[in-house]
């Protein structure tokens, strides 16, 4: 009786092995292949921080003092729109629209007079060489790339970007709050600038 049970158990085990072994072997081979083809580079937070520090220095050296202070204090940069509404019409200083540049988020177009949000322009700068396993630039490099592309050739960048209505990625309440923070920030700078001017001092940057 015991012998018969043991024999049956052996047969069942052998049949189960036949069923399980194939997929198991495949799974192991897939894991090995994944490890072999895509070695995950060690994530080094120190390297990322150093990259970001370098990118911030570069950004500071390229944009104006006001834009740099804006990014440092608020985390975004405003760029005035430069595209004439009609051929021959220059918008200049009275630009009817502007953009907010956030790191690794869409560029947001809005009307400064009314704070009405116009569009989100989704754009990326992927480096397919992936030197450290990632195609993503440091935050400040992403902001600088957007700033250079917008101020250098606004139309080219906007035509490249994917256009979406506001609210797709950027929370409109968050953006409205950022616009309010920007107004407060500008008032404070004006006040400090005025005081420094009256006192014959240069405002601290």
């Amino acid at each position, binding site marked *: 009786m015991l012998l018969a049970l043991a024999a049956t158990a052996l047969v069942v085990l052998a049949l189960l092995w036949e069923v399980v072994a194939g997929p198991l072997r495949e799974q192991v081979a897939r894991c090995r292949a994944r490890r072999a083809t895509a070695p995950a580079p060690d994530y080094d937070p120190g390297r990322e921080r150093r990259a970001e520090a370098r990118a911030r220095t*570069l950004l500071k050296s390229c944009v104006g003092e006001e834009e740099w202070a804006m990014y440092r204090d608020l985390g975004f940069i405003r760029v005035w729109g430069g595209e004439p509404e009609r051929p021959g019409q220059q918008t200049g200083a009275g630009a009817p629209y502007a953009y907010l540049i956030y790191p690794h988020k869409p560029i947001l177009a809005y009307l400064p007079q009314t704070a009405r949000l116009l569009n989100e322009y989704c754009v*990326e*700068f992927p*480096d397919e060489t992936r030197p450290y396993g990632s195609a993503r*630039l440091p935050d400040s490099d992403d902001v600088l790339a957007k700033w*250079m*592309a917008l*101020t*250098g050739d606004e139309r080219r960048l906007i035509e490249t970007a994917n256009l979406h209505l506001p609210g797709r990625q950027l929370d409109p309440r968050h953006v409205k709050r950022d616009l309010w923070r920007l107004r407060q920030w500008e008032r404070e700078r004006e006040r400090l600038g005025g005081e420094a001017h009256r006192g014959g001092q240069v405002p601290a940057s």
Partner: protein
Amino acid sequence: MRFLRMKPGHGEVLIAEGDVEVREDEERLVEEFRRQLDAGMWAAIPLQGSAGRRTAQLARSFADVPRDADRVIFFPRAAGGR
């Protein structure tokens, strides 16, 4: 003139430098410029505009780069994001 390239996980990297008034240097810079554009980079030159306003100029060829430019920054070409 210095050529800088933005790199993920690194920040900018100096890829070439030279004096555009020296013929050998200029040829090397022209060649590197082409190589970067062929590799899918955009080239930008930060400029000091009127009244101290800063802007940038995108260059599609080395001839577009002002002779007195101090640096050219290469960054990956823009693509529509999600």
